[in-house]
């Protein structure tokens, strides 16, 4: 699937040496020495070494690594807040390391918005004036940038706070301003540097969820840095795993969890809560039978009897889920033309990515299987109680 995607940024052979004699460090690296040895022999710190990866248009790419892995350096090399020592970073045909000062400034304005770990809001500017900063330095006139800033603030749920000062806001709200500042700018790539790491866990989950929704809505290419694997798994389309300034593995969360490239990744993955990654899709079974909304009660009852069901999901002509009817209801409703009016639309339904853990609670309320639907609300399958337990038990054995 990802092979067909357009490439937004291509990073090739990116290397960063901190110190005054980068050539020596690179020479040592090419002779096969590691980071520690290079530091000992030359006094140079090899921050990043030969990094290659692509960023696809519209994806949410997470760059993950522990502190010292070079992830912050990497994201700063992309927009040259840190000068890369070697390598190419090509965005829309432009090779960023070769740009002169003016072209770089243009490139930053057009392509990169950035959200920072400690928010980096301008304390002397109101929330709105913070949000419009990117547009202001580009010379957009004040009316237009006010409008765009207010729109962005609305998107992050800060309507009504436009004239507040950053110091009046809580941490979570401040980071929303940081996000609004990035969104208002309307650059083509969103860089997020440990954007949620300074927030407390509850707010963090909330912000992650909002980011996912936002990203699905706008399809903005996003590069997200984190040291937190749970966070990476939760939000990423793909993950680039970094260790000691080198790429260890690139893949979808699923690939990284199920096929860790080496011991390092495996150890990393060990700590993950397996029930959070096992999804509804994994435990899903095909639907044995469905009723159509223009079926009569008799037809529906017949289908149920044939498949020994107590309830049946009702879909429309395009297999979009409308709700559920039970045999009990249908038995009482003799003489009704169609079952349309009997459908209980308030039935349990989840997306394919829903963690199994979340499904547990849903069984307590109702006693029928949970419907799994796709983005167009089409019924894809059902999850029965036994399947959830079975999956969780299997995951337990593995770890």
């Amino acid at each position, binding site marked *: 699937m990802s092979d067909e995607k357009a490439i937004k940024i291509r990073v090739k052979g990116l290397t960063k040496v901190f110190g005054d004699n980068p050539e020596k460090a690179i020479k040592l690296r090419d002779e096969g020495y590691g980071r520690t040895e290079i530091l000992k022999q030359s006094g140079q710190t090899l921050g990043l070494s030969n990094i290659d990866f692509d960023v696809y248009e519209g994806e949410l790419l997470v760059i993950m690594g522990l502190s010292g892995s070079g992830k912050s350096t990497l994201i700063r090399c992309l*927009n040259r807040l840190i000068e890369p020592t070697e390598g190419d970073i090509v965005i829309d045909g432009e090779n960023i390391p070769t740009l002169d000062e003016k072209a770089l400034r243009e*490139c930053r304005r057009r392509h990169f918005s950035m959200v920072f770990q400690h928010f*980096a809001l301008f304390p002397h500017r109101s929330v709105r004036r913070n949000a419009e900063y990117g547009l202001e330095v580009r010379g957009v006139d004040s009316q237009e940038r006010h409008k765009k800033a207010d729109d962005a603030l609305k998107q992050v749920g800060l309507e009504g706070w436009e004239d507040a000062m950053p110091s009046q806001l809580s941490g979570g709200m401040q980071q929303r301003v940081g996000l609004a500042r990035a969104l208002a700018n309307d650059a083509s790539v969103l*860089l997020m540097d440990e954007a949620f790491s300074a927030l407390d866990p509850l707010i963090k989950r909330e912000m992650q969820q909002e980011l996912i929704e936002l990203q699905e809505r706008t399809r903005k290419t996003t590069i997200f840095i984190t040291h937190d694997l749970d966070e990476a798994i939760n939000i990423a389309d793909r993950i680039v795993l970094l260790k000691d300034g080198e790429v260890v593995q690139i893949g979808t969360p699923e690939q990284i969890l199920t096929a860790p490239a080496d011991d390092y990744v495996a150890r990393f993955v060990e700590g993950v809560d397996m029930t959070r990654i096992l999804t509804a899709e994994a435990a899903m079974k095909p639907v044995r039978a469905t009723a159509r909304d223009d079926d009569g009660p008799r037809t529906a009852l017949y289908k149920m009897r044939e498949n020994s069901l107590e309830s049946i999901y009702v879909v429309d002509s395009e297999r979009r889920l409308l709700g559920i009817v039970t045999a009990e209801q249908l038995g009482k409703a003799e003489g009704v033309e169609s079952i349309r009016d009997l459908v209980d639309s308030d039935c349990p339904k989840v997306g394919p990515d829903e963690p199994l853990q979340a499904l547990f609670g849903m069984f307590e309320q109702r006693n029928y299987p949970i419907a799994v639907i796709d983005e167009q609300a089409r019924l894809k399958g059902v999850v029965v109680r036994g399947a959830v337990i079975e999956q969780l038990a299997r995951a337990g054995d593995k770890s």
Partner: protein
Amino acid sequence: MNFDVPRIPLGDWIEAGLDFFTDHFSGLTRGFSSFTRGGISLLNDGLMWVNPWLIILAVCLLCWRAGGVKLAVFALLGLGLILNLGLWDPMIQTLTLVLIATLLAIVIALPTGILAALSERFYRIIMPVLDFMQTMPAFVYLIPAIPFFGIGAVAGIFATVIFSMPPAIRFTALGIRQVPGELMEAADAYGSTRSQKLFKLQLPLSLPTIMAGINQTIMLALSMVVIAAMIGADGLGTEVWRAIQRLQPGAGFEAGIAVVILAMLLDRLTQALRR
């Protein structure tokens, strides 16, 4: 053993340098002199022409708006006392000198401080110069001021500006350098130019620090203006000077108290404006 090292004629060199300066730039210094003198007498005459009570009222109003009732009451009592002691005119002269000297000092200090903040090399050059300017006994500046500008208020202002400028430069540089790196990074990330960073971020954020420097400059200017009475810069200093020569401790303290009142007023007012 006895090394016969000849005495280094440091003083002669300095004098030669100053002479050179006086000879070749006297046109410039005289021009500056007459220009400044014009400004001084204009401000001086203007302030003396207005009824003292009107000025007191205006100052009280300003104090009340900026610093509250207490400051306004202090201004009323303090300025009233100065008027009562018959020191109003010298006080106005002193105030004029302080205002003009401070203004000149700020005009020079702000760009210098900004430059020192942005250029590491300039910072390393300017800091020892500032140390020199601040630790050299203030009286020494009075001596070359006379050949440059002649006896009088302008020479006094020249010495005052040199003596009082360093804190404004230091604080400006300090304020700008203290802007958190993260904020500068954010400004860079959004594609700000150098001047956008300066005017949208560094200057507004360092304003409180710069104001603290200006406050210091005003205080130093006031103390120097009094000393400058020795080279004919008229004002409260002249009163003190006269009292010393006539051995009149009472009159000396009266003028001294007027200086203190003026100093406290300027200090509290600039601090209140900072907020």
